[in-house]
């Protein structure tokens, strides 16, 4: 059910600032790849361009051979790209189940009515929110809101999942739960692009990593090797440690 993602020479300026500069990479179906880099290096901007939230100033994005470069977010979603947000964004007027049903109704297929409700419960159970569908999202704890956001993303039946620091802000035991969840997805063959700062998570989940610094891709390869590269250490920790 997964499709490959191919990004070529992606470019984005904000006024005078070049936020993303000539970034290219590929994800094979079923791969979980980490997108790393210090704050402000352009990771979220890359995700925004893939998902259609921001128009690109140059370059192409292809998913499974389809060019989705200048598509609006709702079209991109229908082409099988789902995402979560760096700061969790629940829809407070909707119940937990309705948050998930939204993606079911407007994702790749149009699930509605009783069938959709059952599917929403299924997605909620998968992320560990079994039987919580009727609750207000405002009453959920932080990790439960993150879980709900994951369920909402999965409900559109994506081929590619973009996770923007989805594991950030969790305590150690919650982090374990979060990592297990992504591993379950991996087991199902989902392609995941994972923006992450937590090295424990990157080592556990990502076979490969891409590292950005100041808008440019500075390294790419198997996680264990990439994290040892001097340029990567320098980007993360400053010159003194290189």
């Amino acid at each position: 059910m997964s499709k490959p993602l191919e990004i070529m020479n992606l470019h984005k300026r904000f006024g005078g600032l070049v936020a993303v500069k000539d970034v290219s990479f590929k994800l094979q179906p079923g791969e979980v790849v980490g997108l790393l880099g210090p704050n402000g290096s352009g990771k979220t901007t890359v995700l925004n361009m893939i998902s259609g939230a921001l128009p690109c100033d140059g370059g192409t994005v292809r998913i499974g051979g389809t060019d989705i470069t200048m598509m609006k977010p709702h079209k991109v979603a229908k082409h099988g790209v789902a995402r979560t947000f760096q700061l969790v964004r629940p829809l407070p007027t909707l119940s937990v189940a309705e948050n998930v049903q939204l993606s079911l109704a407007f994702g790749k297929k149009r699930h509605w009515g009783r069938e959709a409700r059952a599917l929403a419960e299924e997605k909620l159970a998968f992320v560990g929110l079994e039987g919580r569908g009727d609750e207000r999202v405002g009453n959920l704890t932080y990790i439960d809101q993150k879980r709900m956001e994951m369920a909402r993303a999965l409900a559109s039946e994506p081929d590619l999942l973009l996770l923007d620091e989805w594991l950030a802000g969790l305590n150690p035991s919650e982090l374990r739960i979060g990592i297990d969840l992504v591993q379950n997805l991996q087991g199902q063959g989902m392609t995941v692009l994972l923006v992450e700062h937590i090295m424990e998570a990157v080592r556990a989940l990502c076979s490969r990593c891409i590292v950005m610094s100041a808008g440019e891709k500075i390294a790419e390869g198997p996680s264990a090797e990439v994290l040892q590269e001097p340029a990567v250490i320098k980007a993360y920790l400053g010159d003194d440690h290189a």
Partner: protein
Amino acid sequence: MNMKTLHGFALAGVAVVLLACAPLLISDYWTGVLLGMTGYVTLATAWALFSGPTRYISLATVAFFGVGAYTVAVLNEVMPYPLVLLCAAGIGMIMALMVGLSTLRLAGVYFVIFTFGLAELVRQTVSWWEVNVTYTMGRYIFLPFEGRHIYWQLLALAVVTFLISWAIGRSRFGLALKALGDDETVAAHAGVDVTRIKLLLFVISSTIITLVGAIQAPRWTYIEPSIVFNPTVSFMTLIMALLGGAMRLWGPLVGAVPLFLLFEWLSVSFPDHFSIILGLLFILIVFVMPNGVLAKIDDLRKGGRT
């Protein structure tokens, strides 16, 4: 459809039949009151159809209402009445499409200001046109309607409006509307074509509002821009919907009925202070129950139980 919905429909059906029979039993004065009330219930419900879930506060109500009334005034002598209504609906629809395409990108207060400006612009344009092009200051509408005839038409429109609102509320578009009212970005990434749904709802809502103006027009006999483009119509519609709760099917009705009666009484008893009282009421409603009476009652009930 479950039992509760069926009961609801049966009850609503009986209420509509009773309301339809009312003019045969009550005086012309009270039929007039009922007529005005039904007009505002329809306006508030149609307004809430779009503005409730999306939270785009529109003050363009009177622009569409007035255009509806003017269409009837201009066309009532050249074509049969049903065709006039159809024209009014068509003009309202086209105007809503143009306004929607150019403004639904605006967020929050900019949208409010634009819609208010739009109503003024339409009024000034019509005035200018009448004075400089057609050389008419006002227009007469001679249609063989009595109060009750107009009232029955409005009642039918109100029923249709409720049915549309109910159907949208149950559909996936209802869910999408609520979602985009919360967070347009999230709704878009979930697959919702935000622009199109907003536009669609704005057009439906504005077309109904135009029809209310068109149907009510014969009531005046004589109209001019200052009468049918009176901004008070926009404000009253807004307050009524907010008082009852713009997010619920019955909210606008619950707000419109008491407020219409109150406004009737105020405008007769305190004609000079009417706008001040209106303003104060508005502030009071927004501060005391921003989500409307029905939500407040829900809160109180829940509070009582726990």
